């Protein structure tokens, strides 16, 4: 006890030095609640790291000016271990720190579980989960942080139908909430387009290590297009490799973001022609700002993860919206009002694309960030842009 008391002034002194050196600017905390350990770690880690890289770029440039004040951005992260119970705890922690803007959670059950807390505590959150009930009224605090599969799926299938003559399609999904819901959306979209869905019941356990037995029944049917619904980046290369080695000749696509390095490692040339959704990655469309972001990401974490291409936006949207209406910094109602009219230039893409909130046609209210729907095709270790579309 005695010792501790003696140490107190020293600690206080050190603390005061730290704060006076570091906090030139007041700090604006932005939260992240998502999964950064366990089997789905790559979703959350790529997410958290994009935010940290983005914040570090802003802070090195001297902070961001919101209203009359210049802020440094600090990312507060919470690992929910993909457990909805922990996700609630994470949201509570964010509320405790006075944070009003949180990115995540990464999965359906977590996003649904945090809704009561977010609404009680006035937190706007940006889940990477697709259930429509999160974004339609009476829900009002969740903003979809990416393009949903029921939005990208139809665009991809239509493109392939028109350009590649796809007529039959088969779906495969992991036996888990998110992929199964995405499969359902995909099947509906394909049927609406008049495609013949010849298989939609094949599933695999999340603990599958070898996908050959899983994919045998589908390869026999030889569909023109095989859709890997909601596939985790870890599983995609193995599914592709198994399908190709078994002699599957058709196209393979997914509606989630993937990583080129992982595809190359796991499937090599067999992954050529694999269609997935990207954000701002390919050389044809990305701006110098995006290059800077990727460079910073690599400096900080050693290796880039292409999944971050779709996850670079949420932080940018939060800050840009706060800049547009400084009153929103402590008041989410102001934020919601601003969302209705907000536009700003998109820094990550060439040309004059804008950031704005969308979602009227899917949710009946503007509860989605507008990201260009960039559809990629993998070829020899790189993604190439197949086409770019808009979601309204």
């Amino acid at each position, binding site marked *: 006890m005695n010792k501790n008391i003696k140490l107190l002034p020293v600690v206080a002194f050190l603390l005061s030095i730290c704060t006076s050196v570091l906090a030139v600017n007041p700090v604006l905390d932005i939260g992240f609640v998502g999964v950064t350990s366990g089997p789905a770690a*790559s979703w959350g880690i790529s997410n958290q790291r994009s935010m940290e890289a983005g914040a570090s770029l802003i802070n090195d440039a001297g902070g961001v000016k919101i209203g009359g004040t210049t802020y440094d951005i600090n990312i507060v992260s919470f690992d929910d271990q993909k457990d909805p119970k922990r996700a609630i705890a994470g949201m509570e922690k964010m509320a405790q720190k006075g944070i009003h803007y949180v990115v995540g959670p990464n999965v359906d059950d977590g996003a649904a579980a945090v809704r009561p807390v977010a609404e009680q505590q006035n937190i706007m959150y940006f889940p990477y989960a697709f259930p429509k009930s999160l974004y339609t009224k009476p829900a009002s605090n969740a903003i979809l942080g990416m393009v949903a599969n029921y939005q990208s799926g139809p665009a991809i299938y239509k493109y392939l139908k028109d350009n590649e003559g796809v007529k039959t399609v088969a779906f495969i999904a992991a036996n888990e909430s998110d992929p199964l819901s995405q499969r359902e959306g995909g099947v509906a979209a394909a049927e609406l387009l008049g495609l013949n869905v010849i298989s939609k*019941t094949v599933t695999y356990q999340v603990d599958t290590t070898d996908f050959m037995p899983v994919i045998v029944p589908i390869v026999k049917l030889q569909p023109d297009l095989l859709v890997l619904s909601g596939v985790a980046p870890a599983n995609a290369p193995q599914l592709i490799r198994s399908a190709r080695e078994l002699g599957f000749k058709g196209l393979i696509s997914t509606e989630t973001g993937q990583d080129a390095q992982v595809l190359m490692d796991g499937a090599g040339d067999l992954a050529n022609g694999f269609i997935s959704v990207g954000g701002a990655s390919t050389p044809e469309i990305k701006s110098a700002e995006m290059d800077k972001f990727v460079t910073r990401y690599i400096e900080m974490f050693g290796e880039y993860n292409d999944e971050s291409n779709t996850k670079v936006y949420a932080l940018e949207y939060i800050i840009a919206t706060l800049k547009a209406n400084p009153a929103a910094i402590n008041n989410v109602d102001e934020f919601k009002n601003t969302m209705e009219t907000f536009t700003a230039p998109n820094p990550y893409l060439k040309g004059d694309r804008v950031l704005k909130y969308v979602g009227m046609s899917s949710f009946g209210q503007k509860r989605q960030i507008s990201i260009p729907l960039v559809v990629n095709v993998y070829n020899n270790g790189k993604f190439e842009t197949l086409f770019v579309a808009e979601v309204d």
Partner: protein
Amino acid sequence: MEQVLTNGVYLGAQYALIALGLTLIFALMNVLNFAHGQMYVLGGFVTYTVYGRFEMPFVVAILASAVTLAILGAFVEKFLFRPVLKNSEREESSMLLAAGLAFFLDAVILLLFGEKQRGVPKIIDGVMNWDFLIIMPYDRILIGVLAITFIVTFILFMQYSKPGRAMRALAQDKVAAQLMGVNVTRYSMLGFALGAMLAGIAGGLLVSIVGVNSGIGGPISIKAFMMVMIGGAGVISGAIAGGFILGMLESIGLTVLVAYGDMTYLLIFVSLMIFLSIRPQGLMGKPWG
């Protein structure tokens, strides 16, 4: 159907190799090693580093995996399991330790090797295609054969070598073995090292086919438990049988029950529960674990 059966055998060989180490450790020490899957993953990452990154021969990489895990296993036994088993009132406490170890290895692997799925270049290219009845890439055939070779070698080792016999005696009856002059401490450590090594070899072999990622350890442990249960806990032949049966069950189930989609695994698990409640000791296990 030929394809389905071939897949089943091949999957079974993989599973049996994974289950062997788990059952060995259980037989010797009555420890349900929750960290088995993590040891498998670590073995996979060692091979990935040595073969994929440093581009050394595959054999060297497998050897590196085996040695790394054997050393880890020996340390874990000596400094963790031995004192806990000695000091705790109920030997089930070792399950807490095993679970803690599993979390620990998960954390270390994630910090060391990152969150991404990793794979290595194919060992051999090309696909065997037998009249479209059986299609099997050559590297899978090689790995399947290697897995079976390791299993056979292990059985021979347990059957005919001196340490193998000592360990079997230990598994059958600890007290009797001790009275016959078997050094329990030494062989428990050897057994644990051997079990961990088998996990490492399995991980190393399979990384060339299915890759590896830092989060897959837990699910693999659970799957390995199931194989061990089917065959009967603590019996080497049981683990092998369990592995092959689960492999077959999955391969056939996925094809036959394809129309029921999401129900496939539910049916597999429910039948497993029914089987176990009728025959609690599995196919060939000791009656009461």
